[in-house]
């Protein structure tokens, strides 16, 4: 299928009550814009625009959907709604907030609170090989608060990876992109099947007949930790199940990070779900309670530790 890139709406475009400022990203399923609402507040707007089914040409506003793709396009919209539905239920400092949902230009839009910062993916790329342990612990412990909230609502993220973990300028993380919520619905529409990002998806996500659960998100958390520590994700889980070439970070990275952090990364990355941390809470506790960190700045850690613990107490 030829995948021509879709053209973004131009800066200055008035979209419902919002004015487009610029394009933030272009994915296979959607375009994200920075825009301002009527009060001048910055918002992020995600536009449903699956590359394989709709094409917006230069200078046009309505994407063209061919007759043969019309139903699939409509159906994919439902999955976009699923993402909105999931997010609308959640109100948590570490999960992106949805503000509005509307139709225009023959497609649909999700308005989110605009977060200033960058993705963890960008951060890792800039600081490859020297992402500090304290930052890793602080970011992941908080991110897991968001994930616990997701699980508390009986939802699953299923697409946790550094490019979907956003770091605000104050260092706090926000979970973005619940696009994987669409997968339950998409079982009979191969056209729109989400692409799992190789390396971050758990083995059970590749395997028919395998059980998906919180442990699946835990694997992806482990893969994201791996990316922070090593600079790249582990080998694809489906390849690992054939022949496991993953080196435990506790061996390869010894000395660079505390043994406990390395061990818990390896712990999450077990192919067997039963061998992984039994719950997000258990993993979070392990991230916060560090027994032997020689270079930990006493004052900072105790302060952060107590604050994080009070976070954990909730939900």
């Amino acid at each position, binding site marked *: 299928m030829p995948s021509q890139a879709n053209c973004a709406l131009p800066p200055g475009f008035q979209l419902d009550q919002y004015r487009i400022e610029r394009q933030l990203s272009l994915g296979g399923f959607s375009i994200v814009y920075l825009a301002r609402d009527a009060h001048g507040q910055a918002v992020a707007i995600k536009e449903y625009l699956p590359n394989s089914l709709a094409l917006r040409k230069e200078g046009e506003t309505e994407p063209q959907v061919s007759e043969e793709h019309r139903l699939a396009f409509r159906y994919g919209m439902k999955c976009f709604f699923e993402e909105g539905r999931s997010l*609308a239920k*959640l109100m948590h400092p570490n999960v992106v907030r949805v503000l509005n949902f*509307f139709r225009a230009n023959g497609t649909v839009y999700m308005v989110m609170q605009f977060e200033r910062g960058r993705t963890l993916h960008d951060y890792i790329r800039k600081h490859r090989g020297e992402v500090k342990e304290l930052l890793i612990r602080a970011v992941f412990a908080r991110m897991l608060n968001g994930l616990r909230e997701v699980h508390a609502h009986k939802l699953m993220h299923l697409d946790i990876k550094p490019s979907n973990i956003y770091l605000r300028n104050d260092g706090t993380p926000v979970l973005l992109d619940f696009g994987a919520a669409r997968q339950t619905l998409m079982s009979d529409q191969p056209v729109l099947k989400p692409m799992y990002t190789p390396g971050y998806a758990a083995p059970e*996500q590749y395997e*028919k007949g*395998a059980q998906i659960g919180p442990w699946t998100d835990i694997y992806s958390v482990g893969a994201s930790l791996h990316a922070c520590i090593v600079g790249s994700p582990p080998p694809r889980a489906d390849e690992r199940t054939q022949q496991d070439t993953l080196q435990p970070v506790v061996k390869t990275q010894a000395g660079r990070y505390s043994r406990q952090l390395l061990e818990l990364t390896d712990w999450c990355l077990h192919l067997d779900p039963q061998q992984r941390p039994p719950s997000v809470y258990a993993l979070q506790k392990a991230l916060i309670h560090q027994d032997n960190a020689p270079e930990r700045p006493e004052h900072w850690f105790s302060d952060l530790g107590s604050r994080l613990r009070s976070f954990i107490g909730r939900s």
Partner: protein
Amino acid sequence: MRFTIYQESRPGKRRDNQDRIAHCYSRDALLMLVADGMGGHLHGEVAAQIAVQRIAERFQAEARPLLPDPQLFLARAIERAHQAILDHALDHHFPEAPRTTLVACVIQRGAAYWAHAGDSRLYLLRRGHLVTRTRDHSRTQLMIDQGVIKAEEAHLHPGRNRIYSCLGGNFNPQVEYSPRTPLRDGDLLALCTDGVWGPIDDDGLVVNLTAGVLSQAVPRLLDISERKAGPTADNLSMVAMCWHDEHAVGAATVESISTRTMELDGFESRLDLSGTAPGATAEFDEDEIERAIREINAAIHKIDSRT
């Protein structure tokens, strides 16, 4: 409930698709529908559409989240659908009421209940074997029952398409109901129109349906039937569901649906309208889109007002 479901409807070599299929589920009940609008009659697709839509609507009104009585539900909903087709014909001054076959199946509390009129079928497969299937309300089936022809000859018989029970039309449908049928882990239920079962025998259908996951097996089966039927292939439609015991190991797959997390009054539904006239498709989907957007915004504001 946990299950995997796949549905597909295609026109075959015909210009129009007069088949309509749908499934919808609440947290605790699942409904599957297949209707084959009758080609020889005017507006067959209208009859099929009304039948599927009306029954799905009744389901959403009554499965909250369980149906009080699945068999009674089927009987009443089918009767209403039949009446709705007659009403539609009157309202639109059709010379005669359009007709459609119907096969409907409800699953709740681990058991299936089905009903059918005409020659659209339900198959129940267990461990790769056929446990039971519906018997067509057709002249051919009557002749087989009476020993006039052999089952193997049926597909050659010219009266194959002559059915004596359907929704709409001039006579009341003779609907046949199944007993309550408990399901086991891995059981497969497939509902289909004659475009699918006509060109192949039961063995072929069973073998192909049980080879691999439904989302691959069903399209492959439809391909085979369509190819075998040749240049005049009829519309082909199927809704197939694999039942998973909620507690069985390995029950959940990426493709399987668990309704455990659904709201008590929540519904998911999918009507296949691939053959509908453009206007009608747009209309139906428009409503759904509007409803989804309203619901999401309501959820956003519910949360906002808590802060």
